[in-house]
């Protein structure tokens, strides 16, 4: 390591206070060129706030003390936790990228600018692991899958050519294959001498990428140091817990469940966007008390499948039967019982909340509307459920904009749970959670499934670790349902070539191999 290079940015004794409550307190951070500095820690511990401080941005109404220095003048690349929000809904992907490419080709003769800019844009797309860039360029952000949106934002950051890139959960929405490539790309970025600040829950990614790690908890940095040291000899109790829970829960045993009548039966499902077919699922069944994981690469149609089940994607053919009765295609035509029976937790939690009303009220409405509870009971129940998910009352009374990414995800889950659903579809609900919280949450879900009140779970996930919780796994590739079977078998002896590659990639990342080219 080259220690002679001075930091390009530095935070000294940063304290961000809102309503007298410190959400970041006494944080020190040095960002060096060519190095990857990672912030890990519990959900809501202040990572995003610290990251934004590097950009000179603070939550509205915050009182800030301490110092933030950026020696590198110019721009800072930023990949936010919720990429959808920063993608202008009225502009095509190409416009969004060209805006950034344009200043960089300003030096060229006028005639060459267009092609040069286009080249840059296409390169950035492929750097961000978006194949088929040409086609994507013509789309609007809402026509992309969650992971694709995230990579478009990453492409923007790469295109910017900044000396610092702050990446907030850049891999949450990505499957293992893509994730490993994104990690590789970030490593390459660092190798170019750019300082990368990585905010992530994904310890595999952190381990693979980071030079320096800061562990945060409740706004404070509890421990920091080189990645190797931290992993081998964590000093703080919290760090140890965070790293510990890595491996857990063996594959579930799904025997016996298959025998029962399927709760949800999907027959000959094909879903289209416009004229493109993005999903083909000839047969898929979910039994009472069963947990089904849906895995697949980003953009493979997982969300589309989930939305079909939830009645949010009308453009589909085929049948979805609940208890043998066909569910109306659109949730507008579903009865309250049907609505309550199938609940969906959105991939983008932030976008699924009404930004003008406190979270608690919004969560409680489910019980009022779908179960006929009165306001008071509903609120109490909501607050209890949120509490079980680790969200205090104080948090629950805030507006969605004032919650961290992981906190919102849990609130969204609580909102669905309050319907006492029979089928709960969770779209990447653990992506924004630290290992500790994730574990707790998954345990809670597992408990609900096991409780025998016939809750069945559909877990849409990239995280094989999470998928391990399921009884069965279904694998999607480019819209095709390529394989499904008991978790144990799929994990141990995948049959389809695609599944095999997915497993390998995961193993690769987990092995913690360093992507970074060492200087």
């Amino acid at each position: 390591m080259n220690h002679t290079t001075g930091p390009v940015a530095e935070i000294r004794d940063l304290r961000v206070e809102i309503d007298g409550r410190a959400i970041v307190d006494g944080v020190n951070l040095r960002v060096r060129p060519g190095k990857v500095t990672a912030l890990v820690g519990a959900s809501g511990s202040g990572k995003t706030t610290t990251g934004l401080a590097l950009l000179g941005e603070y939550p509205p109404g915050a009182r800030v003390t301490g110092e933030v220095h950026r020696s590198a003048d110019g721009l800072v690349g930023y990949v936010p936790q919720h990429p959808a929000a920063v993608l202008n809904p009225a502009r095509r992907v190409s416009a969004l990228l060209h805006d950034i490419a344009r200043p960089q080709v300003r030096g060229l003769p006028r005639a060459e600018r267009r092609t040069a800019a286009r080249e840059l844009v296409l390169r950035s797309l492929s750097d961000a692991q978006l194949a088929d860039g040409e086609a994507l360029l013509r789309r609007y952000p809402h026509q992309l899958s969650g992971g694709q949106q995230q990579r478009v934002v990453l492409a923007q950051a790469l295109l910017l050519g900044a000396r610092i890139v702050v990446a907030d959960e850049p891999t949450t929405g990505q499957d293992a294959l893509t994730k490993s490539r994104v990690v590789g790309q970030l490593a390459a970025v660092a190798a170019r001498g750019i300082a990368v600040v990585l905010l992530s829950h994904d310890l595999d990614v952190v381990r693979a990428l980071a030079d320096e790690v800061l562990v945060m908890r409740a706004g404070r940095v509890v421990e920091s140091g080189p990645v190797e040291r931290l992993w081998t000899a964590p000093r703080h109790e919290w760090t140890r817990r965070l790293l510990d829970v890595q491996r857990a829960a063996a594959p579930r045993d799904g025997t016996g469940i298959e025998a029962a009548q399927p709760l949800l039966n999907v027959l000959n499902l094909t879903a289209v966007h416009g004229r493109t077919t993005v999903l083909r699922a000839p047969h898929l069944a979910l039994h009472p008390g069963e947990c089904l994981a849906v895995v697949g690469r980003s953009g493979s149609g997982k969300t589309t499948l989930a939305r079909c089940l939830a009645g949010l994607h009308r453009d589909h053919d085929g049948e979805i039967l609940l208890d043998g009765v066909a569910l109306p295609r659109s949730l507008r035509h579903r009865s309250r019982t049907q609505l309550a029976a199938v609940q969906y937790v959105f991939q983008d939690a932030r976008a699924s909340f009404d930004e003008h009303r406190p979270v608690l009220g919004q969560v409680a409405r489910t019980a009022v509307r779908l179960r006929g509870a009165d306001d008071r009971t509903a609120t109490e129940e909501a607050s209890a459920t949120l509490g079980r998910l680790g969200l205090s009352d104080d948090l629950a009374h805030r507006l969605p904009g004032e919650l961290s990414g992981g906190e919102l995800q849990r609130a969204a889950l609580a909102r669905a749970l309050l319907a006492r659903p029979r089928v709960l579809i969770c779209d990447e609900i653990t992506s924004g959670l630290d290992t500790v919280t994730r574990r707790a949450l998954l345990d809670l879900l597992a408990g609900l499934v096991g409780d025998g009140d016939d809750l069945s779970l559909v877990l849409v996930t990239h995280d094989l670790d999470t998928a391990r919780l399921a009884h069965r796994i279904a694998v999607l590739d480019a819209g095709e349902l390529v394989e499904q079977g008991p978790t144990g078998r799929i994990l141990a002896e995948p049959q389809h070539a695609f599944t095999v590659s997915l497993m390998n990639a995961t193993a690769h990342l987990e092995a913690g191999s360093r992507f970074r080219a060492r200087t």
Partner: protein
Amino acid sequence: MSKSPRASGLRSFVARRLLLGAAQTVAVVLLVFALTEALPGDAAVALAGDQPDPARIAAIREAMDLDRPAYERLADWAAGLLHGDFGTSLASGRPVAQYITDGFGPSLLLAALTLALLVPLGFGLGVLAARHEGRLVDRLVSGVTLAVYAVPEFALGVLLVTVFALKLAWLPPTAVGYGTDLLGHPAALVLPVLVLLSRPVCSLSRLVRAGMVDALASPYAAHARRYGVPGARVRYTHALPNALAPAAQQLARTVDWLLCGVIVVEALFVIPGLGTVLLNAVAERDVPVVQGLAVVFGVLTVVLNLGADVVAHRLTPRAGVAA
């Protein structure tokens, strides 16, 4: 591949709306016809004026064919329309098409000029106010445009004429005697266009401001700024499109209003436009002329509304994909 469905969706959307538009135009004509027919008095009474000798009115009625049932006259007129014949005026016996073409020129000119200024001004002021939301500039822009909006056109017109035409003698006070050749006297157009601008500028800029305040505060605008996209570009190409849909509707209405009935301005400045023709025709109960104009306005409205809807459709690509 992914473009074609959208594009063809748009095409079929436009085609369907144009078809619907034909039906709408028919409805407009029927509505206007029914209302004009239901008005007290008819062309004969109007022509008789303050000499309402009943025998004479009856004679005029007969001479104008008004003694035939209304539906027959409508049917005849409609049959003529299919051949592109708008019919002839009851009051003068001249072809209605001539009325329309004569009135259209000045109206179109005024509308075009006003629009050419309105769009940059309305959007510019709206954006400016939104940019400085809550600050002096915003208050100034909002206050002034609102105050101007609350002043009726004739009052503003009288004021401008008094100051610029009569006191300072910079501009001619009216377009009297210029006939349809308004382009030959550009100075005569300044005041009418200013008066015409006064109200739409306010309504447009208020709507733009409202949309822009939200759009400028959005994360995507912040992101663009963060990435060094120049301020003007953020405002006009990032935020504005998201604020535009209601403003486009307003703009379509304004064009409509400009072409159809800026009666006050036409009267005040003696510009023989469509509004004047329309009012006269109604006063004279000249049903064929009123119907002819109804066709023109109907078609115009359909096209403009369609335009506004297409703009909205393009600017909010996500709309309509909800479950």
